[in-house]
Structures are given as structure tokens and as C-alpha cells.
């Protein structure tokens, strides 16, 4: 199946920046109610630039691969730029067209990141 190409499966089985950490991070949990995807992201931000992201949660291939790829791309990106990222950017990251039924999976990570950056996230300790 095209959707499950090797790169995505690699990010699913060996995600980058997996695991939440102790420390002062912006933290936010996001859900995909349709299928039960559940992700928690942590971000560190300095001078309005996102310095790092880590995450964990129960997630399907698409949502986890999107989060993993996002966690690589987001490093050293200005907050304003991250806030502008949308589906087209995520699809570019994933490198494969996402079927309509899986759009929410693909968007979960970036939506959760946006919530964290917009200040509705809690600070982890």
C-alpha cells in the first residue's frame, strides 16, 4: 500500500524524539475522537523560537509518523512560522497524499503543537 511506505513505517516503529521529559516545557495533550489517537507534546521555546519537541501517546501510523517528522522539522523554527503550518505542510512532510478519512490523524500533532504554543497548554514541571 502506498500509504504505508517504508519511511512512514520507520517513523512509526522508531519515532524521533519519543518520550516525555521532566523539565520546564509547554505541554499539551490532543485527541482524535474518531479513532482514539492520543498524543502529548512537549515544546521548549526560547525567544519565540521552538528549540525542541518531544511527544508520546497511543497513535496510528499516520499520526505518529507526522509527529515524528514534525519533531525533526520544528527544531529552530520561529513560533509564528510553526503557527502557520497547515495540512499542505504536513502532507509535504509525510510525502504521500492522505486519504480524507485520515486527515485528522495527520493533523493531530500540528494541532496539538498549535494549542501548546497558543498558551492553552499547561507547563510541565
Amino acid at each position, binding site marked *: 500500500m502506498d500509504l*504505508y511506505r517504508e519511511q512512514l513505517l520507520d517513523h*512509526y*516503529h*522508531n519515532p524521533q524524539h519519543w518520550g516525555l521529559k521532566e523539565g520546564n516545557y509547554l505541554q499539551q495533550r490532543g485527541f482524535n475522537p*474518531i*479513532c*482514539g*489517537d492520543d498524543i502529548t507534546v512537549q515544546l521548549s521555546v526560547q525567544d519565540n523560537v521552538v528549540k525542541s519537541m518531544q511527544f508520546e501517546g497511543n497513535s496510528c501510523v*499516520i499520526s505518529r509518523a507526522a509527529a515524528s517528522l514534525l519533531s525533526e522539522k520544528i527544531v529552530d523554527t520561529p513560533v509564528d512560522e510553526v503557527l502557520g503550518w497547515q495540512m499542505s505542510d504536513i502532507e509535504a512532510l509525510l510525502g504521500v497524499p492522505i486519504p480524507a478519512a485520515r486527515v485528522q490523524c495527520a493533523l493531530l500533532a500540528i494541532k496539538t503543537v498549535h494549542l501548546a504554543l497558543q498558551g492553552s497548554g499547561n507547563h510541565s514541571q
Partner: protein
Amino acid sequence: MTHSFRHDFPALTDAASHYLDSAATTHQPASVIAAQQQALTTGVGPVHRTIYPLGVATTQAYEAVRSQIADFTGAAANEVILTRNATEALNLAAWIEAPNIQAGDEIVLSVAEHHSNLLPWQRLACKRMAKLVWLDVNADGHMDMADVRQKITERTKVVALTHVSNVLGTIMPVSAIAALAHRVGARVVLDATQSAGRLPLNREELGADYLAISAHKMYGPTGVGALIGRQEILVKAEPMIVGGGMVTHVTEAAAIWAQSPQRFEAGTPNTVGVIGWGAAINYVHSLDWETIATHDQQLTAYLLQELQKIPGVQIVGSTLLNNRVGIVSLRVQAGPTVLHSHDVAEVLASHNVAVRAGHHCAQPLLEHLGLADVVRISTGIYTTNEDIDAVISAIRAAQAALAAPIKKQATVPSH
């Protein structure tokens, strides 16, 4: 070899397509489609509102189905309220019971309830400062009657229960629980959506004060369901939705409600859907219960047997045939990783196998079982051994397609 009823269903003529999501919705046989088409071709008039022949004929056809539903559930025609679906029926039951619930009262429900038989009671309990008490279900999907006896007390006003779990397929001990409920003066609200069309329903034998069903889960159309409620309750009950068709007299200041069940049927109903439902009830009767049960048991036995041959497949709930129907949930692993049900369903879909993935509107149940999401396979009268073969082979394909790429092993612990 089970007899195939697939040829009764126009939507299933493609032998390469394998529909295994009947617990979500069922397909309609040709006779049900024809009944609706005929009604539309002859003309569907207003119900209960006209003097001219078309309206009278439509009203008679509509009321005839009400009587059919009454027979189907062992109730009287004036105890059948036609709704949009079972969800609306269960909301109506909660609405009718609301005045009986005071602060400190208890509403007992099973942890296996579908959200439609949970949320109305949760909201009611919140509004009334009543307490929700949960009946446990074990890993096999069965209840412990000692637990039930302990939890139904003189403070219990309502026991809300599913007849068959939409995730685990288990048949709950409804009559025994209803007896306990009635002993303390509590009312029993039964969600019979998964049992209607699979098992005979007798309201008295089950002990249900309210029974909710949906047509689209028993080979009928979408957009129509029913609440079957005891006459002595309905006669005194307030309607939930008010408007045309459920009043005898209206002035600027006030209105006088019609008798039950019309009192609960405001506005124009899904007339064609109701007529179709009548044809669906006829179809189910034409199959007879023994045939339905035999077909279900044989397919379920085959499915369970074949699933247990696949390494990495974990059946959620019982692997036995007793007290269950053809609804089987499972988790699938590829190596050490438990695959997300969404991905499994995606690969199955690419093999023309339709299953459901996720939490199945039963989040408390999944949490109680320590699971996040499951794949669900569910059969209908049109399901064949070939459908089972197809899902088995597609599951193996999913395990291969979603496995970690060979050069690296998985590092993420599975949930």
C-alpha cells in the same frame, strides 16, 4: 456450510466485497428496498392529518408497522413510540424518567454501555445530583451477579443495560438483572440495538420497562427507531419534543397533549423509513430465529477458530460461543508492536474488507479493559465463510504491511 442469504441483498452482489461491520449498520434486502420504492411510487401522504385517500392509506400503512413492532417486541401498539433511532429513544426514556430522579438517587448502568445508553443518564445524574453506579464486566465480557446484587439497592431508580455488547458480543443476563431491579422498585431501560434481528425480543421475558431499537441494525432503513415503554408509564409522561401532531388542542396560552404514543411523535416522521422497517420485520420473520441463530453461531465459530490461528492476534473478550453473538473485537500485533486499529482497518479496506476501528462509542468499556482502541468484526445474515476467509487473510496482510522495515527493529514499546 452455512446457507447464503447474500443474494437477498442488492448492495452485496459484488463477491469481491466483504462487509463485516453489521454492528454499525446493516444492508437492506431487496424486499425492504422494494417496499420503500413502492410507497414512493404510489405516493406517500401525510400521516394522521388528512381525510383524502392517499393520507388515509399512508396512515394505515404507518400504523400497521407500529403494530408489527409491537408484535416483534411482545408489547401493545400504544406502547410503541416511533423515533429517529435508538439513541433518540434512549434520550426519551431518560427524559421521561427525569422527574423520578432526586438528589442522592442512584442510576445503575453497565460499564459496557454504548454512549447512547450512557450519556443521557450521565447528564440526568448531573442535573439531579444523582449517582451513577457501574456494573462490572469481566475480561470475557460477562457480568458477575454477586456484583450486580450488591449494586442494585433501594436507592436505585433506573437500571440502564445493553442486551448485547456492541464491542464484546456478549449477551447480558437481562432477565435476572431486571428481577433485581424490580424488587427495589427501579425501572429497567434496555438497549436492544444489537439484539434486534439477532435474537427474539420479548419485553415481558426480558423484564424491560423501556426497550430501544433501531431499524438500520436489523436490515431496515436508517432514520427510524422505537422506544417501547409500558403503557402505565407513558400515559402520564411529558413529551420531549413538542409541536404539530402531538396535541389535541392549542391556544395562545396552553396546549393539551394527545394520547400516547402520538404524544411523543411530534412533526412529520420518516414515513418511508417506517414502511421499510415493516418490510424488514417481515424479512427477519421469514428467516426464522433458529436459522438466524444457527447461521450466526456457525460463522462465529469459524471466525474465532481462524483468528486464533494467527500469531499476534489477541481476541478481546470471550473466545467461546456461549452467550454471545457474531461480534468479535481484537487487537493485532506486528512483531512486538500492537498495531493501531485504524491502520489495520485501513489495510483491510484496501483488501475490500470493511471493519470498524476505534473505541466503538464505548470508551468506558475500553478503559475498563485497559485498551485504547480495537478492531471489530461483526456479521449479519448475509455474511459468508468467504467473508471470514477474506478478513483472515487481510489481517495477515496487515501484519506484513505494517511491520517494522527489516533493516531496523522497533524501539517503541507497544501500548
